[in-house]
């Protein structure tokens, strides 16, 4: 038995696939690949898949890790995993690397995001400068029981910078995303847009990478 970790991109139209859809696509791609993959042993047996940090519907990503297991111990070539999986995936889901896992899923601590907001870039950028200079940015979300809870987003922001590019406000942020708590970039963005009464023409949110506590890359 060996653990295999693949890294894939979810780009373009594939960002409109839900996490459940992505799981189903990978299940089929693995079944189709012919690798002798490990199935869970429960009543409803299915191919074992583990995602480090599920991505919200509508977000793109350039760095998504996913684990599965191969029953036999004979090592499989990285290129073979990549090639066989890609031939069975829809457009926009692309595996670009495969290796033995280096870190535990619980080691993932931060996500690096790029948020592109098209609209009045100048107005947005001056407002955003003010927005992120505050010591306290209250964001409100509902927990699983539907109870609203307000927290200070600043505690979740490790790094943040912004720029304007071709009529876009481009925000680069490293936000907390470990297994216990995380900040969804769209919550931060919507709080900003609402507070300043700004309207976005289009929003594109991309996870650029997944990071460890010391901000090195999760592998």
């Amino acid at each position: 038995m060996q653990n295999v970790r693949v890294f894939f991109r979810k780009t373009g139209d594939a960002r409109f696939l839900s996490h459940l859809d992505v799981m189903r696509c990978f299940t089929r791609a693995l079944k189709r690949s012919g690798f002798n993959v490990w199935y869970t042993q429960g009543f409803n047996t299915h191919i074992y898949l583990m995602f480090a940090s599920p991505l919200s519907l509508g977000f793109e990503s350039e760095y998504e890790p996913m684990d599965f297991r191969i029953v036999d111990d004979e090592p499989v070539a990285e290129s073979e995993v990549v090639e066989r999986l890609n031939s069975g995936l829809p457009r926009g889901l692309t595996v670009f690397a495969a290796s033995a896992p280096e870190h535990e899923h619980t080691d993932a601590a931060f996500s690096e995001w790029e948020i592109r907001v098209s609209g009045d870039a100048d107005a947005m950028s001056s407002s955003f400068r003010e927005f992120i200079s505050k010591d306290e940015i209250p964001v409100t979300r509902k927990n699983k029981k539907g109870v609203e809870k307000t927290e200070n987003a600043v505690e979740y922001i490790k790094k943040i910078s912004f720029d304007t590019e071709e009529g876009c406000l481009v925000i680069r942020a490293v936000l907390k995303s470990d297994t216990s708590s995380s900040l969804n970039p769209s919550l931060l963005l919507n709080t900003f847009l609402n507070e300043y009464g700004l309207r976005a023409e289009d929003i594109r949110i991309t996870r650029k990478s997944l990071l460890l506590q010391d901000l090195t890359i999760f592998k």
Partner: protein
Amino acid sequence: MNETVFNRMLSAVQKPARYTGGELGAVYKDPDSVDIRFAFCFPDLYEIGMSSQATQILYSVLNKDDSIWCERFFAPWFDMREQMLTEGAELVSLESRTPLNKFDVIGFTLQYEMSYTNVLYMLELGGIKLFSRERGEGDPFVVGGGPCTCNPEPMAEFFDMFSLGDGEETDNEICHCIAECRRKGLDRRQTLIACASIEGVYVPCLYEPEYLPDGRLKGYNALDGAPALPVRKRLFMDMDKAPYPLDPIVPSMSVIHDRPSVEVLRGCIRGCRFCQAGFIYRPFRCKDASLICTQARALIDNTGYDEISLLSLSTSDHPHLEDILDGLIDWSVEKKVNLSLPSLRVDSFSGTLAQKLRQVRESGLTFAAEAGTQRLRNVINKNITEEEILSGCEDAFMNGYTAVKLYFMLGLPTETDEDVLAISALCQKIVDLFYSLPNRPKGRSVTVSASVSCFIPKPKTPFEFCGFNGVEELRRKQQMLVGSVRSRKIDISYHDSETSYIETVLAKGDRRVHEAVLAAYREGSIFDGWSEGFSYEKWLEAFRKSGIDADFYALRERDFDEFEPWDTVDYGVTKSFLKREYEKATKAQTTPNCREMCSGCGVNRFTGRECFAER
């Protein structure tokens, strides 16, 4: 289409993956490399359309042709419609996001009558003129296919042509014919006449209906250049050679029928008199058992699904079902693939076959009893006895099942209140049977659910002469049935009779009925097959506004010698056969299945041989 606008729309809807395309198996071509761009339109949601084998087969057959690029369109759900109206966006294809009006040929599949308003909805969102007569040089040709074309008349004003029967070859021939006419510089009318000479193609504008003073049809006048009526449906006889996609599109999101299928046979030998499919898909043709197994394996290898179903009207009528199961059961266990076998008849299992089936069948047990009394089952030629149902249930209970589902219809010809009450009585007998078994599953209770639909007398069946039972009368019967249930183990669910009434009008209508379809669409009717879309009030208003007398079409008993709207098209079964069957029905006489005895339905006029002759 502007990408920013498209993104904005998709970000605002519930299930954006319905509109993106890009699935495994989707075909992309260089638009400049093809002669004909074909828009395959399924007038319902993506999840429904992608569950249809028609979509997969036609998409594959058309795209195998280097001179054609077939792309897909589905009906946008209400949330997407709102976005499109707000943004002023047109309906675009899934593959290249090209607007519908940029295509050469638009092919709609008409799978059920309640999708008719969605045809208009999609045409209008795509910037296509609704009426065939309004479309001119350079406009796309709108083609209809699918089971509903066995009475194409209610939609005839909106379509340039219909492809009748098996569509595997016809659509490509239509494309080639249109491309050829364009090369020759022929105008639209000449092109339509050229297409009319393709086997199985009906061009409605070449025939003018004439009516009697009492409103019934008198007949049709063929215009210059029109082939004689009736137009025969197209048949693809050799199922072993029928093109079948083994690398189908695999939807990335979950769809209704989320597994590949192998078609095992086409047509049906049973001749149940209410069943339109049982008549319009004649003759009975089956695929070779080993080919079925090869195709099933290839489909799983190519798609990665963990489930596959065998598709047909009656899988147990395949003469070599045992070979098919032998070829698939061990493989499916080894491959961890779930084999799903819908459409099995309880009466056709031998001992060993039943044993084999038990290995694959894990879902609940269903019986299509269709009627409560033996007399009424004889009327509809549903040759299943109460004894068979009860012994099937007993067998199931002994094997650990505790849930049984039965299908029935209300409003069948000659039905009395006694027949209706017999439905709940039969359900009660099954409950009693369960508790009478000493070896029943212990500690568990039984559930008998009956799903009761409203009978719709459809064209090309022996009941085409009959009227619909009526909205109120069906409601009375439903109430009576529900009121007669004495056990909490029995769960009765029934269909809304208003939808069935409208469906009858659309199924049996003539060319004038298009005015009601248009009026209903103008009232805001779309997605009539969905509770979210259907509005009886809108349809009644549409009938008032268009002056269409719905009862005239739905409720009236028709004379044997009346010229019917669907007599323009020949699906094989002859009028004289349907009359004979109707008369036998009224006397509660059954007809043996085709394998036992040929009843002379007439389809072998097309094939030139007996269906079950020694080969």
